């Protein structure tokens, strides 16, 4: 049988999320179910994916959209060739992700914030930002 993935045709799915932290958990669960349906191994779907999605959505809501309820967060997942590209885009001005210090530095370890992007980088296979810095793309391999 010709494989869908082998033929280069993957599922794409998307979700528009309102700018409120109340929906983060539900959106994460919904997207995790779809990632599982697209072949992400159960353990990665249950843990790595849910953590990085929660981080990216929270940042998009809090920093990107600055809690403005008129704004939305768009999530799109492209499944192709055994990997998921998870795009999270907010309507904010973006930021410079190269300027974020490591939360594991001894003088930062006691801080209560600053671990979000670090966890995204650690738990994804690849991370990319658009130039403006209002869209992140997290790659997760299925194998």
């Amino acid at each position, binding site marked *: 049988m010709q494989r869908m993935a082998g033929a280069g045709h993957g599922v794409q799915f998307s979700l528009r999320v309102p700018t409120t*932290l*109340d929906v*983060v*958990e539900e959106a994460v669960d919904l997207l995790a179910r779809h990632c599982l349906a697209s072949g992400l191994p159960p*353990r990665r779907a*249950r*843990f*790595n994916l*849910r*953590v990085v999605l*929660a*981080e990216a959505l*929270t940042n998009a809501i*809090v920093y990107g959209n600055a809690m403005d309820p008129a704004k939305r967060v768009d999530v799109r997942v492209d499944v192709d060739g055994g990997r998921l590209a998870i795009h999270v885009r907010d309507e904010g001005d973006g930021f410079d992700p190269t300027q974020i210090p490591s*939360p*594991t530095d001894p003088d930062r*370890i*006691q*801080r*209560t*914030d*600053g*671990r*979000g992007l*670090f*966890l995204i980088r*650690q*738990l994804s296979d690849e991370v990319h930002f658009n130039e403006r810095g209002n869209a992140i793309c997290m790659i997760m391999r299925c194998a």
Partner: protein
Amino acid sequence: MSFTVRKDDAKGVVVVGVDGQLIVGNRHELKTKVLDALEAGEKKFVIDFSPTGYIDSSGLGALVSLSKKIREAGGELRLAGLNDDLHTLFELTKLDTLFAIVDSADEALAAF
């Protein structure tokens, strides 16, 4: 998602179970629960993650904040029941160096 709080009277330890996720949407609830007990005079705390799905960075931040406040009040906090994935989270962030992490809530109680 919800938190269960029980008091082990023999040992005088408050055990909080994190049922579901510890994330941006409910970390304040956890903080309130623990700080209320601290204010009421409790000193020994165990947070049990055995029923926990995932923790996000704001959840980790809430634990750092609680640990500091408990220490300042002369109390002690132990984290128990972390599965492999959750344990990795503490290792990656080097927070395993900051917390007393034990295998199970029972072990945490025994060690107090």
